Structure formats: C-alpha cells, structure tokens
C-alpha cells in the first residue's frame, strides 16, 4: 500500500511516465492504428456510402445499406434463419469438436511409443498445407463422377449412387464443418501438447501415491493445469473459425442466397452482387457478433486470469 499522494501530483507523475514510455510503445500503437483502427473505421465509413455493384462510389447512403430496398438485412430471399444458425453451428461445433479431439490426440501423442516423432509430424500435415489446397483436395475427392471419396462410398456399398456432397448447400456446409475441424486440429493439438509437457511429473506421482485412479488424475490434476493452454487455443480458434472464408466458399458449388451461408460468406456474396457498401453493413454485424462471442468467452472462462 503506497502512501496517500495528492491526486494532482499523482496524475502528473502518471502522465510523465506514460510520455516516457511512448517511444517504446509508438511502433505498437502505430501498428494497431494502421491494421486495426483504420480498417475498422473504413468499414464503418463504407457501410454508409452508396456504391453500384462495380464498386463505384455514388454518394452517401444513410442507413439504406442496412435496411433499404437492397439493404444487407432486408434483401429479399436471403434465408436468414439458416444463415444465423449456420454461423453459430459453424463456430460452436467446429471449436468444441476440435478441442475434444485435440485433447484425445494430445494425450496420445504425449505417451512414449516407437514412431512417436513421425506421428507427431504427420499430425502437423494439415497445418503445413495451405487451407485452400486441403479444401480443394476434399472438393475433388467428393466430386460425383471421378471423386475418390464418392467412389469409395459407392464401392463399399454405403451409397448406391455417388452423392453430390458439394452440390447441395446444406450438405456442403457440413462437409465444410468436417474440413474445418481437420485443419484446426494440428494447432490445437500442439498447444495442448505443450500444456501437457508443463504438468510436473512429481504432482502426478503424488496423486498416484494418494490413490487417485487414472480418471481422477486426469480430471482433477491434469485438466485443471491445462486450462491456460485450452483457453488460448479456444480463443484463437473461435476467431479463426468465425472468420474462415475459403473452406466454406470452395466446398460450395452453389451460387446465390442458399442455405449453406454463414454471415462471413454472405458478406462476400453481397460484395459481388450488391457492392462494397452493403457488404460493409453486414461486416459491422459480423464485427459486433464477434465481439459478443469473445466477450461471452471472457465472461465465462475468464482466460486472462488463468494465463497470468
């Protein structure tokens, strides 16, 4: 506890300290201003301008990009129910499934067994490849006439005739969920693996000696100690998955306002057909949605507390 200081003096001292820190903070502040604040400002500004579909500025638009005749939220035939449910499912299912599988996989990879190094490298593979490449492989594999996955499903008798997985928007959405989990696994697995390495052996031994069985040891000793790793992995995954565009776009052969859109892919659809103004209007909703998700997460999990 410091001695009470006159508020005026305290403030001036703090200001002095802040000024002294400025040269060291300046690059970071500039970076934040350049890559976070300016684009966000531009998004808000664009949302209130009228553009034609070629992106040529026509003047101020007021709220018409949001709620006008061809506005983001009032454009006819957009299946909003499925867009919102898809968006929530996309984030929640992909992140939870990724975490669950990664916990299993990390546990397995932390055991000592012959060939562990090779297997760890293999798990990295989806991460090392570009997302577009991986997704394109799945897309071709699922092609109706020549796709290898479709061929496999037909030859094994699971399907009678090839199924156009990427031709039906809803089916394509679920394939995208699968691929998104697949490409998110390596990063998450490695983060948790790193967390597992930091669990001290003596604590586990002590728990063992105290008579805790394997299940108890995992849930009551290991899992709580993994919390910082899980917290970091979850937060990064939520934001990554929410913003992910290529998987959903590449795997969906359908155009227009179909039932396989999330808000992110819908932004691109709007950009192509209704211009950047309307797309920015929906981007703002996406931005707010993202903020809410992250806020919820902070509120429930309190990751900063653990990471400290």
């Amino acid at each position: 506890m410091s001695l009470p200081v006159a508020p005026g003096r305290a403030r001036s001292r703090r200001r002095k300290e802040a000024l002294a820190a400025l040269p060291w903070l300046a690059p970071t502040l500039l970076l934040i201003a350049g890559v976070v604040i300016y684009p966000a400002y531009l998004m808000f500004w664009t949302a209130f301008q009228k553009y034609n579909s070629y992106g040529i500025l026509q003047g101020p638009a007021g709220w018409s990009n949001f709620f006008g005749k061809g506005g983001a939220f009032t454009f006819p035939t957009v299946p909003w129910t499925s867009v919102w449910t898809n968006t929530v499912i996309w984030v929640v299912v992909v992140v939870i499934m990724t975490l669950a599988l990664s916990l299993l996989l990390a546990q397995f990879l932390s055991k000592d067994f012959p060939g562990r190094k090779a297997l760890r490298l293999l798990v990295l593979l989806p991460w090392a490849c570009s997302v577009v490449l991986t997704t394109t492989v799945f897309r071709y594999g699922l092609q109706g006439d020549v796709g290898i996955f479709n061929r496999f499903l037909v030859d094994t008798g699971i399907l009678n005739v090839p199924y156009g997985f990427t031709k039906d928007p809803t089916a394509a959405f679920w394939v995208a969920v699968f691929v998104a989990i697949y490409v998110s696994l390596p990063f998450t697995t490695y983060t948790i693996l790193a967390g597992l390495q930091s669990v001290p052996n003596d604590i586990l031994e002590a728990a063992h000696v105290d008579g805790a069985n394997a299940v108890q040891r995992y849930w009551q000793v290991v899992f709580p100690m993994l919390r910082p790793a899980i917290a970091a992995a979850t937060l990064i995954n939520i934001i990554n998955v929410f913003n992910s565009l290529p998987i959903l776009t590449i795997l969906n052969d359908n155009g227009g306002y179909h039932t396989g859109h999330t808000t992110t892919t819908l932004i691109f659809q709007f950009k192509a057909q209704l211009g950047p103004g309307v797309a920015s209007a929906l981007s703002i909703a996406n931005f707010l949605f993202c903020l809410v998700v992250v806020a919820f997460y902070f509120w429930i999990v309190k990751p900063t507390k653990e990471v400290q």
Partner: protein
Amino acid sequence: MLAKLTKVTAIAAASMFVLTACTGTPSGTSSAPTGGQLPATTIKILAPNYGDTSKADWEKIIAEFNKKQPNVKVELQMEAWETFTDKVKARIQANDLPDILNDNAFASEATTGLLYPITEVMSDSTVKSIEPSLLKNGVGPDGTQWAAPDIASARMMTINTDIMSKAGVTAAPKTWAEMEAACAKIVATKVSCYGMPLGKEEAQVESSLWLWGAGGDWVKDGQLVANQPAAVEGFTEIKKLIDAKATQPDPGASNRQAVADAFNQGKVAMYVTHSGLMATTRKDFPKIKYTLSQIPSKDGSPVAFGVTDFILAFNNKDANRKEATKQFLDLFYSDAMYEGWYKGTGLLPVTTSMINAAKSTDADNKDFYDSLSYVKFNPVSDPKWDALKNALQGTAGTIQKDSPENVLKAVQEQLDAAS
C-alpha cells in the same frame, strides 16, 4: 553511388530529349492527326483468355501497332474468364482504368459515365466494317453506341449420334414433346439425356433458352420481367426434365464446362454448346460423333443463343491516349490483324468481310454461321440485366427442389431489390 545514379539519370534524360527531338516532327504534337507519330504515352488493355493463344494473339497486334507508333507503350493484362468481372471491378475501384477493355458486358460502366462512346475511338470505316445486326448489341438504352462487339458466338444443341441411334432416336428433337420422348429412350440406356448447366455460371443462358422456347422474352414493354407466364412455362419444362431424371445429376449446381466434360466422355447425350467447345471435342475426343441442331422449343420454331463480347474504351481524359486507342482499335479490326485474333478465340468473327470469308471456308462451324440468322441475345445493354443475371445465377438452380412459381418470384424480388 549517388553520383553514378545522377549520371545515369542525366544520360537517360538527355537521350530522351534526343529521342523527342528526332521524333518530334511538326505533325507529332498532342493533337496528332492520324498517320503522324504520337508522343510517348501508354495505353492499357485488359482482356480475358479465350484460349491458349489469346495472349500471343494480342501481342501480335501490339507489335504491329508499335511499328507505326513506337512511342506508345501498350500494357496488356490477361485474366481468366472465371474471375474476370472481379478484375475489372478491381481496376475500376483502383481508378486504374484500362483504355481498352474486352468484356461481355458494358451497361454498368456506361451508366456511370466512365466510357467513351466507342464511335469516338474508332474511325467510321471501322465501325461500318462490323456486321450491323451484331453492332446494335453495343447500343445502350440511351441510344449511344457504347461498345463494339469483337467476337460472336452462337449456341446450338449438340447431340451424340451414337447414343441417339443406340437408343433408337431417329431425328434430333425440335419440340419439347419430341425431346421428352427422345430423353425417355436415352435414359433407358443408362445415359443422361440432357446436360443442363443451371449452376452459378450459366444459369442466365439456360433460363433464357427455355423462356424463348416458350415464346417469351425478358423484356416486356421496355422493362425486364422475370416472373412472367412464358418464364413459368419454360421453368415448368425444365423441372419436367429434371423430375424425369433426364438431366445429369445436380443440374442446379453444374457449369457448362462440367456438362461439356460429361458429353465428351459419352455420359450425356446432348447439351447446348458453342463452337469453341466443339473444337475441343473434335480435337481431343475424336471418338465422339455428333450432330448440331436447333435448340428445341415448345412449338418447334428454332431457338439459338447468341453472345457477343465487346470492346469498351474508358475515358482517361487524355487526348494522346484517346488517339492511340483509336489507332489501335482501327488496326485491331483490320482484316489482316483481326483474322488471326478471332481465330484464336475459337468463336465467330463480327466483321462482315470475315463472316463472309469464314462462311465459305469454315465447314466445321457452318451450322453456327447458319444459326446466326435466328439467334437471340440476352438484354445485356439494359443496366438492370446485371441484377437479373445475378438473380438467375444464384436462384435458377433451386428449381430442382422448388416450384417454377416460387423460383421466379424469388428471382423477381431480387431483381426489384437490386436494381
């Protein structure tokens, strides 16, 4: 280092003066009359790839142009068709307007006042050399000739004759009823009958064919109308074929290339094609025997689909660039240059002299030339066409699972909201 750099710059600057001095003949001023040499300037061309030789074909013309105008630098950017509109939009948004654009639409650019009327950047004789019936496609709703066609293509039905005879179909179907009957026989041989690309790339073409087949037209009383009785009739026929499993699987998410591939592999008996696609079939799939025919319609009157792509000239507010553009386009449409260029596209020429020359020599495409007498065009000059096209591309495919009335209602709603 710095001294050296200054020296180099000085030499460069000096030599430039010398160059200007040499070329600066009295007629070579900024308002150069045709024939004189223009001062140093740059014109930019943005063009799509029609085929493997497209870039070389343009470069040939550029080389010829540079013989006459050595001071004019020509910048050529070639892009694939799939993403071409995006590239055009990107250039426009970056305010880097190409002096010459080769595209399949012009209405959006024309309505925003970015273009020269094409007659300002082509001499009268060049304009007159283009087949009038094709030239009028480049006229905007305001009556101005905003664009000039540079290639045409006609689309007709191609039918695999082996599949046809195997199924016991004796003649190419001309009416919808004949087509349904033929398809029933062909489907019985376990081959898809009609390749229907109703996906996001070609739905606007396919929809038009069936609308015209029912005797309708998108333009009614000067307005684009999607939800109209003839369209309902056309879409009902589309749905009939889909429900009878006469089409390839998932027509609502198929593009023309996928359908063409299936045809080349003998998996589809007929589809609507153009001369470029058939050239590939002849070259790479010689085993496929085919015949070309009119596209079936309700009452049997012939339907064929016409497309012209266009040359547009953007206004860069620079007299020298405008003059260079004009000289380039005059050269481009000259028989000597144009012949090689259009042949590289695999499509049909637009100048009267080339059409006449090709009709007598190009036996492979004879049917396509003949169909030019009855082709119909999509209303590309209407500024609302983009909205209708987008709506069709995104929505027509849902006919697989929805009723014609609902699909067309959705298309109409999108058209109304977007335009």
